[in-house]
């Protein structure tokens, strides 16, 4: 494989729960991200899936340095991001950019598209000289498939899909190497979703980008990702190449998640095995001891409550899986 561009080790983010009006005291911790490690290779797409509350968006914020981690390290090309001086950090941020979920709230309604896409150049003035900016912005609009003549329009004059393209153009402005996409297509209609996914695909080839692609839609992630990580309650429970995860998942949670995805094929009703999970995800303020999935798991035994399973390769799982009883099972029945 090619070189590692981003290296995350034991990343932890706990949010304090405070109570009281005048004298706030901390009464607990929301363990949003609790010891996540991953590597991102140059030119690949790493998909992160999980249900709401599993910590995937907090992970995105940590990677973007928008939140300070409680513990752990993030290394970009071998340099520890968290230990850099503020100036170095700002320069480094050029290389890691974010595409946000909601194209309606992530664009300032009072700025023109030209100002939005050109704003990165205002902050990093050495990238493009002042006189050159307008031309650069128009180039970017062209790259993402928007009409360069619409540079003076406002966000409300665009549709959802077009707005997401504006967000992508803004992320591309500083020629980053890594783009973190946090649910980039979940707010879009099916027909528009495909357009944006194809755009992300072609941009990756054109600029040799690495993506961290966060989504709750497993079909979307299967389509775009080279490797996939599955998160549950702040932990990575399974990590592998997309075929490994989708065709032979070994963690019970991944199996249940995959089996619950409705397949757009009515003939699948007959031979589909759906694993039904009972109940809801426990609160991240007070996660279960041992394996966090054990309260909803049909394989759970005593050891699961006392000993936390590590994310590792075992005799029965060819890729890292955090389960004492990991065992491959095909639940998708790929055609």
């Amino acid at each position: 494989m090619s070189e590692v561009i981003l290296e995350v080790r034991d990343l932890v983010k706990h949010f304090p729960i405070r109570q009281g009006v005048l004298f706030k005291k901390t009464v607990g911790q929301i363990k949003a991200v609790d010891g996540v490690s991953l590597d991102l290779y140059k030119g690949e797409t790493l998909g992160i899936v999980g249900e709401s509350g599993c910590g995937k968006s907090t992970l995105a914020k940590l990677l973007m340095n928008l939140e300070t981690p409680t513990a752990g390290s993030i290394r970009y090309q071998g340099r520890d991001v968290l230990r850099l001086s503020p100036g170095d950090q700002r320069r480094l941020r050029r290389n890691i950019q974010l595409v946000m979920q909601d194209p309606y709230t992530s664009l300032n309604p009072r700025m023109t598209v030209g100002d939005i896409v050109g704003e990165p150049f205002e902050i990093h003035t050495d990238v493009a000289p002042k006189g050159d900016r307008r031309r650069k912005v128009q180039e970017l609009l062209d790259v993402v498939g928007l009409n360069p003549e619409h540079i003076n329009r406002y966000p409300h004059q665009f549709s959802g899909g077009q707005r997401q393209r504006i967000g992508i153009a803004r992320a591309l402005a500083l020629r980053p190497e890594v783009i973190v996409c946090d649910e980039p297509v979940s707010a879009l209609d099916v027909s528009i979703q495909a357009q944006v996914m194809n755009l992300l695909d072609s941009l990756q080839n054109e600029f040799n980008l690495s993506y961290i692609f966060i989504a709750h839609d497993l079909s979307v992630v299967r389509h775009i990702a080279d490797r996939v990580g599955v998160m549950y309650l702040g932990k990575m429970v399974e990590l592998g190449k997309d075929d490994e995860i989708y065709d032979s998942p070994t963690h019970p949670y991944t199996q249940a998640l995959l089996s619950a995805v409705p397949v757009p094929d009515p003939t699948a009703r007959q031979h589909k095995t759906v694993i039904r999970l009972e109940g809801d995800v426990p609160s991240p303020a007070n996660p279960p001891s041992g394996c966090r999935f054990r309260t909803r798991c049909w394989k759970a035994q005593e050891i699961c409550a006392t000993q936390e399973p590590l994310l590792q390769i075992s005799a029965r799982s060819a890729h890292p899986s955090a389960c004492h009883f990991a065992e491959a099972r095909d639940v998708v029945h790929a055609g």
Partner: protein
Amino acid sequence: MTDIKVNTAPVLGADKKAGGHLLEVENLHVEFRTRDGIAKVINGVSYHVDAGETLAVLGESGSGKSVTAQTIMGILDTPPGFVTGGSIRFRGKDLLTMPKDERRLVRGEGIAMVFQDALSALNPVFTVGFQISELFRKRRGMSRADGMKRAVELLDQVKIPAAKTRIKDYPHQFSGGMRQRVMIAMSLALDPEILIADEPTTALDVTVQAQIMDLLAEIRRERNMGMILITHDLGVVADVADRIAVMYAGRIVEQADVHSLYAKPCHPYTMALLDSLPRLDLKGQELNTIKGLPPNLMRIPSGCAFHPRCSMVRDICRSERPALLPIGNRASACHFAEELVGRE
């Protein structure tokens, strides 16, 4: 376990009672009069539902699928929304010409609705038990205590654990999936004959979505209700629907039973929609896309509304609007539907 039994739904077109279907929407027209102009949101929609069957209404945002449901329920915001034509017959009686009081009785007892966003559909300042029992007090004349008792039974039916204590909780104390269960319990309170579910699982995670869809299917079967499932998710539809109506720009462009629709879509829009879908069980390279954008409902294109985005467009599509015509046991609104049906 999942439901793989063949359900007892009547065959396409079979009449249950003399004179027609349980619910019959015919040639419905709705427009929104706004400051910027008139948006024609529904332009002649017809469909019907019978007891025990599930009709899925499929469409993207702005296709008019939710507005049709709101019009059936009589909860369309007027103004700006106005019904400009058509009829909605429930048990043979037109809901649109019915006096207000009579129509009010149909709501809840005849036709009930489950909304997408349970948190904003429930009142945050009353307990869940109060809100459910309110139906029994207002409509059945029950006492407060009896109403609460019935509410507990209902919460039990929708499988909310410890219903007796949860009844005193407020909506924000429930998780998303549990809130949707409360919504379903509420809609079932007066034993409706038809349940309209408007994107009931869009705001939920997949594992919870599976639980809720199971619950709806089970209840529909037990009570032999008719169900209208409104959704944009082609996966959910394939799992539960008997028949499907695909909407585009306020019209139904294709109607068929679920198996024929997925096996051989007969409208270019349905075809493109299915092609543009990323699949869990198939790893494709490039997704086919539908070029362009959904139409602005204030300026719906001439002829076939889909023609600017259609890959098969010919001259006739720009000038003449294709009607929704039956071909065999299905219907398609395309000039070239015959060709599409005949293809291999």
